[in-house]
């Protein structure tokens, strides 16, 4: 199994990660947002010298270095002469540094990187590859690896068909807690791409998408179960698809990341599933979902036809196992979900 692990972007953090676990195959981190942004928030913007230093260190430790430049919206900047030259220069520097791979979401960059550079080209989850047809398209552009859109993480027919359709590597993101079929997904990642990319910074009042995302779960906690995460115990069910797995979470502390690495490397976690999920972090302290109590659910999902309103399995499971952290006499206690109010 090859585990790709997030990294906030500073050398000290990388040293902590690589000295903390021998189970890391590759590290990924964002670059500077001055050329191509990323579709998620970042804690740092390592410059070329930082990337060079950290790439050398990762290689010394026998670990691959991947730079994530997965803006889902460039606002057309890459199509201008000035924009192209700037981005081309940046890719050239990363190539010269010896970065192993670049993750991009923009199809133009997939083709450009595969034709002009030596680095491996990884198609981001933010390219939303959720079918064999899309996978074939990106492989045709030059993808070496495709990170599958987690929306099909529990759709084994599509996963198997995608595997059969291409010869490039497939990678599965295991701990993204995004809503299944999230209606905010494209708009949110486009917003992040502009907020964390080149160009004028917006004076944003609130991240509406994040508030709404949290609100949807609080108002309907079964959404937590429907999110297409993969439990550490269930990795074996995916090994006929791929042996490359990616842990999300580059804004977390090394301690959190290492906890995830050990859980997925050992294929076991005895604790709150919310501890493992990259997002939504803000409600990690609200819900308790016993990971062990989810044992066996994968059998249902393997033959699930995704008609939730007729099935109700995830809803029943949510009612059975989700607990809510609450306060009683100044102490934290776990309580079942509540369905009656008006007190």
């Amino acid at each position: 199994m090859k585990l790709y692990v997030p990294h906030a972007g500073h050398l000290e953090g990388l040293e902590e990660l690589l000295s903390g676990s021998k189970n890391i195959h590759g590290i990924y981190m964002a670059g500077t947002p001055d050329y191509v942004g990323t579709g998620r928030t970042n804690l740092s913007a390592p410059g070329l010298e930082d990337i060079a230093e950290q790439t050398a260190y990762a290689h010394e430790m026998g670990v691959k270095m991947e730079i994530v430049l997965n803006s889902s919206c460039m606002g057309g900047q890459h199509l201008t002469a000035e924009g192209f030259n700037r981005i081309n220069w940046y890719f050239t520097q990363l190539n010269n540094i010896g970065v192993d791979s670049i993750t991009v979401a923009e199809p133009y960059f997939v083709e450009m990187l595969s034709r002009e550079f030596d680095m491996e080209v990884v198609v981001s989850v933010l390219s939303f590859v959720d079918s064999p047809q899309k996978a074939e398209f990106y492989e045709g552009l030059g993808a070496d690896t495709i990170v599958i859109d987690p929306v099909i993480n529990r759709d084994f027919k599509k996963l198997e068909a995608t595997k059969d359709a291409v010869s490039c590597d497939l990678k599965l993101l295991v701990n993204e807690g995004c809503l299944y079929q999230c209606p905010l997904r494209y708009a949110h990642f486009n917003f992040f791409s502009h907020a964390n990319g080149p160009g004028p910074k917006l004076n944003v009042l609130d991240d509406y998408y994040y508030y709404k995302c949290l609100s949807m779960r609080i108002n309907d906690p079964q959404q937590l179960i429907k999110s297409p995460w993969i439990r550490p115990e269930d990795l074996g069910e995916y090994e006929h698809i791929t042996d490359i797995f990616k842990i999300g979470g580059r804004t977390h502390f090394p301690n959190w990341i290492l906890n995830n690495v050990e859980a997925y490397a050992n294929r076991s976690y005895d604790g709150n599933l919310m501890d493992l999920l990259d997002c939504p972090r803000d409600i990690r302290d609200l819900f308790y979902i016993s990971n062990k109590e989810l044992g066996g659910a994968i059998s249902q999902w393997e033959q699930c036809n995704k008609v939730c309103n007729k099935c109700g399995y995830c809803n029943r499971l949510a009612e059975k196992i989700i607990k809510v952290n609450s306060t009683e006499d100044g102490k934290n206690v776990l309580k079942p979900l509540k369905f009656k109010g008006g007190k």
Partner: protein
Amino acid sequence: MTITETLARNRGELEVKMRDLLAKPVFIIEMDAFALPCGCKGVTINTRGLQYEDLDIFEEHIRKYLKESSEGLEIEPSFLFARLVPGTAEVASLNSRVLCNRCYMDFARGSGKRPRPDIYILNLTRRE
């Protein structure tokens, strides 16, 4: 009891009351006491899962709970309001603020509940 212990107790109590009222795990993600350079002071209670419809239907209850929480922190509940994500159902925070004279004039000038698209006034005690 220290100020942080008082805040922690109030956070938990208000959260329990809101959950009992609304039958959903409304989350008070942070409760902050503040003092601003203009002279305003008070408490900001950041919420997740609370929506405009909850305020609309249970305004009386929520006002009462917020007043009690504010008094528990020894903050005069003269100005209670919710901050909304403008144009949406989402409530970003509940607030109790003792207004400075300048900010008081900003809020007291109008008579409605929505002086700004992001503000929903639950209580404003008018000064003489």
